[in-house]
Structures are given as structure tokens and as C-alpha cells.
């Protein structure tokens, strides 16, 4: 009986958190440099961008969607901004243009999903390809990598600065997490995101403007992608647009799903994303110290994801009781 109660208490989020702690302890004991203050900071810093993108994905997934164009939007919008600065546009004007581009792309995606009723998987997949192709063909012609202009001023600090010894990417990620948390929990619109993800028909009948809300979700995630772009570009002083062709978008989905956000919508919150991101951070950092090959790291990551999903479905089986209407 007690074991069962413990089982009930566990859920995917807690399992993953437990796993993170276990890994953390194991790495601390076995790896020499792991439990070093600087290493911990660089660990978190290395997944800060992933975490920020995860927040964007969270908002969309909560509303029963998925956004595969996040990474493409991130890369192309900031790359174009920096390209414009190189071409002589003032910094703020260029960044605003990049932000508007990201929001515009997301707005279009949202309209495709909400009004043209294209499944989000296909709409965002097509948009990702379109954004990357269009960006490479017309916006940042002739090069994969756009280097950071020297004239960016204080914005560089977002990637390279420190606040009380904490690298700025971590601070920005934490701030974004706080903003998204407050948005989802305390604003009316944030509550509507959950409502739509839970039951679209009931939301609609209840008088929620469902389609504008769907568009808004994508616009928010587009804006978040741009922020992630600024952090990436200023940290490494360049934006390599080939990142679109990497499997980064799967990592974003990974941190969201790993943390226990339900892909069927309506279930999950910022905490899940943080937990998922931390696990990936600890894992990748530890494996890098152990000098495990990148390709092998991917194998381990995927196994962890599968494990988390399997354990979750064992601990929280699909309940016939809630699957059926009527009396207890």
C-alpha cells in the first residue's frame, strides 16, 4: 500500500528531477572537476538558450500545438539583424527589424494553424524550411555565418556579461522563465492557453476567442526565439545559420517532453521545462567531461527520453475511470 502511495506521488516531473539529482551526485563523486563552481555555472549556461527556446515551445505545446520553426526563426532573425548592422543600419533599428521579422513569421504560422487549420506539425515544419531558405537566399546572401558587429554596445553584455558573478545568459533565461511563469499562472490570457489545450470545444463555447489565442501562442514563441537568438549570437559573437540543420529543435522538444509537459495540451508548466533543461545540462556536461563522443551522447540522450516516457506511462497509466464519463 505504501509503495503504491509513493507511486501515486511520483510523476514524470519528479522522476526526472530525481534522476537529475542522482546524476548530479554521481558525477560529483566520480568526476574531478564536476563540482566546481565555474563548471556548474558553465553547465547551466550551456543549456540557457535551450531553456529559453523550451519556454517558447511550452506555450505552444500547452495549447495543443508544436513549433518546429523555433530554431530557424531564432537563427535567421538575429542573423539578419546583424547583417543589417553590418550594412550600416543603426543597432536598435536593426534589432527591431529582426524582432518584427520573427514576430511576423510567427504571426503567419499562427494564422496558418488557426484560420487555415493546417496541423501545427506541418505548418511549422514548412515555415522552418521557408524561413531558412528565404533567409539564406534573400536576407544574408552568400554566407552561413554572420559575425557579431563591433557596434552592438551594451547588448553584447547579454551574452558575455555577468551579474553578481552569474553569466548573463543564465540571468536572462531565469528572467524569461519568471515572465512566462507569471504570464501562464496569473494572466487571463495565460489561463486561456491552458483552457484551449485542455478542451478546445469547451473553450470555444465558453466564449474564448480561440483562433486569436492560437495565433498569439505562436507570436509569443516567435518573440522568445528572437531573445534566444540574441543570447546565442552575443555569447559566441556570431550566428551560424547552419544550426537550423542540426538537431537542436529535437533537443528543445526533448527538454519540454522530458520535464513532463503533455504533448496533448493543457498539462505542464515552467517548472517542467526547468527540470528537463537541468537534466540535459547535467547529462551533457558530465558526458563532455568524461570525453564521450557527441554521437554517443545523442544515443544516451534518446535513451533517457525513452526511459522517462516509459516510466511515466507505468506510473501514470491511462486511466479508464477518467476515460469514461458518468458516475463513480
Amino acid at each position, binding site marked *: 500500500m505504501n509503495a503504491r502511495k509513493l507511486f501515486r506521488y511520483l510523476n514524470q516531473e519528479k522522476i526526472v528531477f530525481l534522476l537529475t539529482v542522482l546524476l548530479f551526485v554521481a558525477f560529483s563523486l566520480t568526476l574531478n572537476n564536476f563540482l566546481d563552481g565555474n563548471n556548474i555555472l558553465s553547465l547551466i549556461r550551456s543549456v540557457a538558450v535551450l531553456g529559453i527556446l523550451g519556454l517558447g515551445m511550452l506555450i505552444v505545446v500547452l495549447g495543443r500545438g508544436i513549433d518546429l520553426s523555433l530554431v530557424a526563426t531564432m537563427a535567421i532573425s538575429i542573423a539578419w539583424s546583424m547583417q543589417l548592422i553590418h550594412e550600416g543600419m543603426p543597432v536598435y533599428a536593426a534589432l527591431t527589424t529582426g524582432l518584427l521579422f520573427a514576430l511576423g513569421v510567427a504571426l503567419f504560422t499562427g494564422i496558418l494553424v488557426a484560420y487555415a487549420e493546417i496541423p501545427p506539425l506541418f505548418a511549422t515544419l514548412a515555415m522552418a524550411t521557408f524561413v531558412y531558405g528565404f533567409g539564406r537566399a534573400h536576407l544574408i546572401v552568400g554566407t552561413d555565418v554572420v559575425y557579431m558587429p563591433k557596434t552592438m554596445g551594451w547588448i553584447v553584455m547579454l551574452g558575455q556579461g555577468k551579474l553578481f558573478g552569474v553569466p548573463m545568459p543564465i540571468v536572462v533565461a531565469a528572467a524569461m522563465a519568471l515572465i512566462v511563469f507569471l504570464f501562464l*499562472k*496569473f*494572466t*487571463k*490570457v495565460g*489561463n*486561456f492557453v*491552458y*483552457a484551449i489545450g*485542455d*478542451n478546445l*470545444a*469547451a*473553450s*470555444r*463555447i*465558453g*466564449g*474564448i*476567442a*480561440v*483562433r486569436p489565442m492560437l495565433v498569439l501562442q505562436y507570436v509569443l514563441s516567435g518573440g522568445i526565439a528572437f531573445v534566444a537568438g540574441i543570447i546565442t549570437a552575443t555569447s559566441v559573437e556570431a550566428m551560424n545559420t547552419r544550426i537550423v540543420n542540426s538537431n537542436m529543435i529535437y533537443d528543445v522538444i526533448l527538454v519540454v517532453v522530458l520535464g513532463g509537459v503533455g504533448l496533448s495540451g*493543457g*498539462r505542464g508548466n515552467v517548472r517542467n521545462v526547468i527540470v528537463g533543461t537541468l537534466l540535459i545540462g547535467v547529462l551533457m556536461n558530465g558526458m563532455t567531461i568524461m570525453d564521450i563522443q557527441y554521437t554517443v551522447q545523442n544515443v544516451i540522450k534518446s535513451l533517457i527520453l525513452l526511459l522517462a516516457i516509459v516510466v511515466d506511462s507505468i506510473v501514470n497509466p491511462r486511466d*479508464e*475511470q*477518467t476515460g*469514461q*464519463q*458518468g*458516475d*463513480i
Partner: protein
Amino acid sequence: MSPILELKNVTKEFHGVAALRNVSFTLMPGEVHSLLGENGAGKSTLTKIMAGVHEPTQGEVVFNGQPMTFGSPAEALHKGIAMVFQETSLVPSLTVAQNIYLGNEKFLNRLRGIYIAAQQFLQSLNFGVDPTMYVSQLGAAQKQMVEIARAVHHKARIIIFDEPTATLTPEEKHHFFSLVNRLKREGVSIIFISHALEEALAISDRITILRDGQHVITDDAKNFDRDKIISSMVGRSLSAELYSRDKSRKARAYGQKVLSVQNLSMGKMVRNTSFSVYSGQITGIFGLIGSGRTETAKIISGVVKRDFFHGGEVRLDGRSVRYRVPRPAVKDGIVYVTEDRKIEGFFETKSIAENIYMNLLSSDLNRGVVVSHSEMMELAKDWTKRLNVKAIDGNARVIELSGGNQQKVVIAKALVQKPKLVIFDEPTRGVDVGAIAELHQVINELADAGLAVVVISSYLPEILNLADRILVSRQGRVVEEFSTEEATEEKIMYAAVH
């Protein structure tokens, strides 16, 4: 004769709340045993223990003389216990025949073969369903038939029917009962859960009544009558206040014309229908399934769009409106209380309080940006008290409530938006006797308070009992109107079918 299935002192708890307390139950071979009780009485829990969906917290299940624990519904089905659920568990994207043979396919599964076999099988059951149709294209009644056919085909020794007749027409009910009799002759035991007491009386050998998770009485059906059943179900005699027409009841006077519908059309479901709705009274709309009642209501409340060119006209307070989504309708004060609360009524991951509060947020009554937890709890407390929702507190999830209480939450969600026209679509479907009386009172109070109320129902006593004027819908249009004085069951039925 020894019982085929026996439950001994079974207790079942969900999250520490007992849904069943010390219930014993026996089922003889070849017996039709009705299980009656209000929603929340524990009927479904009891049958789900038999069908292997739940495991009892305490007590013992004896099947065929041997103690048994079923790990899963599939295992119970394999042993010969089949359950026909209220909501169908068919695969919508497969055909009728494929569904019937699901799990029994041969290695090489030739469709033609199973179509022919299914055709003969369905004919032998007297079910007029085309085996090549996809289940998604079937109506509710036909789905129910397929579900029954599947249970029979699995050669089940015990079949549990949970509200099998709720969606059937009189003709289909007749077929269903002759099928039950046939199964009985073949030695199949049948457990029958229903809110239709006359059916239970007519069909059963024995009747067991549960109340609040406890066993009240088990006896031969011939020792029961309607009043005795109801008084055992609710512990008081309700039949007088429910469904016996109060002759002294006066129809409410016509208020202002709130809604006027002219030549409304939508596809094949709504054809050129015209009627009006007045404030301060209840307009009942009666019609058989497929007569376009629900569709008409959904057009008025913006859930579906009417035809663009020849869609007719809807006037709200004299102003022509054409809603494409429900939001402007809600803004204008029209709310629709759905007939299918699970699919489009409430949020299942959310609590009672969150459910009710969400609809306040989505109406224009709340212009704020930020949500308030205290306002939410206040609202929940207020409405659960007004509608007498039985739950531990506002933090209970709606999905865990009984049907009647779920319906009350859905109604609270609608009323919190301060509407002037409320459309109730089958307000008491899947709701127990005790809650029906309460829901009827709520609806009456709304009309007394001056709201325009529309009640759509396919249950005649309900319409006769509630409505001040009765519209009869047939084949997509309102064909006749009765005042409550002149209406009789016969007249209404005659208008609805002919």
C-alpha cells in the same frame, strides 16, 4: 443453481473516498439483473470491478466458483465478461465489420469475408447497420448497436449494459429487448444499468438497488413497482414531484420577444426553420434524434455557422445577427449548455472553481488582465452552493464528480456569464433522479427571473413538465407549436414522427 458471478463485501475507494462500501452481489446464469441507483450510487464502479477496469480495495470477486482478480478489461473479456459502455469504445476509423471482428481477425483478414459474415451476423440480431460503413459516420444509436453486436459476437457469458437504451428510438429499443431475451435463453447473464425504470421493470428477473455506495435491496422484479424503486433509490418518494404533471401549473406569460428565427438553414440538418423565443418563460423543443434540434441551437449560439446565401435570419432583440463563432453570442447574452458535457462542456484537468472561473474570464464581465485566486474561490463557493454541487470543495476536479454534479458545474459555467437567453440541450442526460429535480428547479428559477430559456429534450415527460410552450422539431424544422394546456404526449409524438 450456483451463481456465475459473486461479489462478496466489496469496498472500493478512490483517493480515500469510498465509492462502494461492503456491497455483495450475485448473478445467476441466464438472468437479467438490473442495477439501479442515482448517479454516484456506485453502479458504474460495481460493474467496472466486474469487468476488470477497477480492482476492489477490499472484498472478493468469485467467478464460476473460483476467486478471481482480473488484471485488465481484456482479461475479463477473455473470460467472458463484456461491458458495453455508455460512451462507445469503438474505433471510429474502422468499418462496422472490422470493429465487430476486432481482436478476432484471422491472419489473412479478407475484408470481403468479414463483411459477408458481419452482414449475416447483424441480420441475425435484427440490427439494420451496414457493415461496410465507417463507425465515424454512424449515429449514436447505431454505434450502440455495433457495440452490443460486438459483445454478443465475443460469446460473452456475462454482458454488462450501461445505459444501453438512452440513445435508441422506440423501434430500436424493441429490437434490443428481444435480443436481450434471446441472449437470456442462450444462458447469457445480463446486467442492465438504466435510468429508465419502466424498462428495468419490464426486462429484469431481479433488481438490485444501490444508494450512496451501499447495497439497499435485491429482490425479484415482480415485487417492485416504480414508486418502490424510486423511494429505495433516493430514500424518499420523489415520483410525485418528478414527471407527474402538476395540473394546477400555469404557463408563464409571454415576455418580450428575445429571439426570432426566420427560415434558418444549415446543410441537411436544419431546413428552413422559423420560431420565436420569449423572455420570462421556458420554450421546450421536442424532437427525435436527427431532427435538427441541437444543430438549430448551435447555430443560434454561434457554435456552427448557418448557410451563407440562403441561411435565413436570426434576430436577437430585433437586431439581425450572424455569429460565426460563439464568442460574440456569449457577449450578446446567448449561452448554450451542451448535451455532451465531456466533449464540449468542461475542462477535465481543471477543478470546479477553475472551470467556473474560466467562463467568467472569457465573458466580458471580467475586463481585468490578471486572475484572482480569491475571486475564483469566492465564485466557486457561491455557485456550488446555489446549484448544490456535491463535492468536497471547489478544488475537486470536475472529472471526478458524478454526472449530475458535472452537469451542475457546466450549468454554472453558463450562468456565470449573465446570459439573457440560455439554451439547455438535454439538460438531464446521464443525470440521476435526485439531481433531475434540482436541475429542473434551477431551470424554472431562471425563467421566473425573467430570462429566456430554451430546453431541448427528447424525453417527453421532461418537456411537458418544464415547458410553457412546446415546439416540435422534425426533419430539420419546427413543425408544430403547442401551449402547455393543449399538449399531450400523444399529440407531441404524433407531430414529431409523422
